[in-house]
């Protein structure tokens, strides 16, 4: 399968996963935020899904940039600019490319995380999406450096993200809306970390299926 074709499939699956978890994500946000994370994300990815067809013959950079701009202009809240920036930074790694390799993937992931950090000024341990994404990135990178397959790499990545989500239950939020609750946020899992995990899981599932 061509990289672009696979990418379209992955994004489409991410959108479907987010839609299926709309209520779940919103309920998580109700506990420590303002009950809109699922609603926001679903609104954004629904629009992404609608726009996918128009870019299906474009390069990877264009596809990802379209996703980025759509998320930025429809999601709103904190997660809109964060995920938007992440996709935009990833896009910049593969602009004009129709085929991408393992190294591109590591670099895309790295740039995405740096974008999120730059935009949100958060770090690991602040109880945000980064608590899922950073461990996932580290495991994925290690796996690829060890010459494992992309599928293996994403499997390790999504498992690390899952651990990261579990970890967010144990800590108090320092960034985002949940931080207003201080210690009262402990015991609840972070909605943004959860959506990040769900996205990585969707990538892994798509890759496995497409094999």
């Amino acid at each position, binding site marked *: 399968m061509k990289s672009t074709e696979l990418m379209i499939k992955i994004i489409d699956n991410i959108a479907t996963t987010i839609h299926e978890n709309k209520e779940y994500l919103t309920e998580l946000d109700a506990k420590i935020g303002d009950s809109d994370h699922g609603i926001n994300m679903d609104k954004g990815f629904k629009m992404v899904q609608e726009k996918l067809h128009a870019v299906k013959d474009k390069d990877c950079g264009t596809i990802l940039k379209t996703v980025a701009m759509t998320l930025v202009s429809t999601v*709103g809240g*904190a997660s809109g600019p964060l995920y938007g920036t992440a996709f935009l930074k990833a896009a910049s790694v593969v602009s004009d490319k129709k085929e991408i390799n393992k190294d591109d993937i590591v670099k895309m992931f790295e740039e995405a995380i740096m974008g999120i950090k730059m935009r949100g000024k958060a770090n690991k341990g602040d109880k945000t999406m980064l608590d899922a994404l950073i461990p996932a990135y580290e495991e994925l990178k290690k796996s690829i450096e060890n010459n494992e397959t992309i599928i293996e790499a994403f499997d390790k990545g999504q498992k690390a993200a899952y651990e990261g989500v579990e970890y967010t239950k144990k800590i108090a939020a320092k960034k985002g*809306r949940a931080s207003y609750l201080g210690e009262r946020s402990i015991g609840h899992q972070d909605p943004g970390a959860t959506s990040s995990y769900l996205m990585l899981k969707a990538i892994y599932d798509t890759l496995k299926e497409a094999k």
Partner: protein
Amino acid sequence: MKKIINNPESVVEEMLEGIVNAHPEYVKRLEGFNVLVRADAPVKGKVALVSGGGSGHEPSHGGYVGKGMLDAAVAGEVFTSPTPDQVFEAIKAVDGGSGVLLVIKNYTGDVMNFEMAAEMAEMEGIKVDSVIVNDDVAVENSTYTTGRRGIAGTVFVHKIAGAAADKGLELKEVKRIAEKVINNVRTMGMSLTPCTVPAAGKPSFELAEDEMEVGLGIHGEPGTHRDKIKTADEITEHLLEKIFNDIEVNEKDEVAVMVNGLGGTPLMELYIVNRKVKDILQEKGIKVYKTFVGNFMTSLEMAGCSVSILKLDDELKELLSAKADTIAFKQFEE
């Protein structure tokens, strides 16, 4: 959910139509965007002020668009920050060549969306700068956290920075003055009832008949703690105590006071609160230069109030007293 609406999805759209219908002499809408700008925008040569955020805080922010305050207000969905493209359109529409100042309430979402818009505008060669309002003393401030929220004190920033821009000051100066207001204003709030986001259909939290929520923001999020309902005097004492723990105001200092209703509280109660505010300030020997009582920064139909104290110097006093003519904030020159 008891609301006079047609459809939870379309409340922001229909509200904006209703505002423009009612006040065409003050505002016009940017077609296709949830943005209200001054009817005479862009004002050539003047620094433009752009603010906004989630809807549900009316009259904030559309009500403050007009002479001496904002040039544009961007309306997100209820309690959801607007997206960068909306803010970007607002910036483009009001830039009069002297640059644009964004007045942002300190919420992660608002800050990031407005900052992205600023980056987009800068790429188009528009001079943009921003200030972040964080007056809510319910939340502890720290560089390692999101920090204090921006609530009712924001209206003082609109008023005073708006007057500075109206006076013809340059962007750097308007920003300096806005930051001075931010450094000198503190707010603390409480509520008796939750509010219901139309799309959610149910209240954001539950409160017993004898309970109140203290130290809450303006998005229906729960506060810092829950307490038995106290008398107006006790509540006011607590709110001011929190404020004065955070900012030093000394004998002979002059302040502006804002007793702000959250949407569902009658003016009668706000004035009863103001009576006690005045008493406490008088006891401390603090002089009240100006008092504002009313619904300035609301949370839909939430019953409750916040008290804001702004420490003044001569520069701020002059700008606070300057003429303003907007939908919801009108003031004759003194």
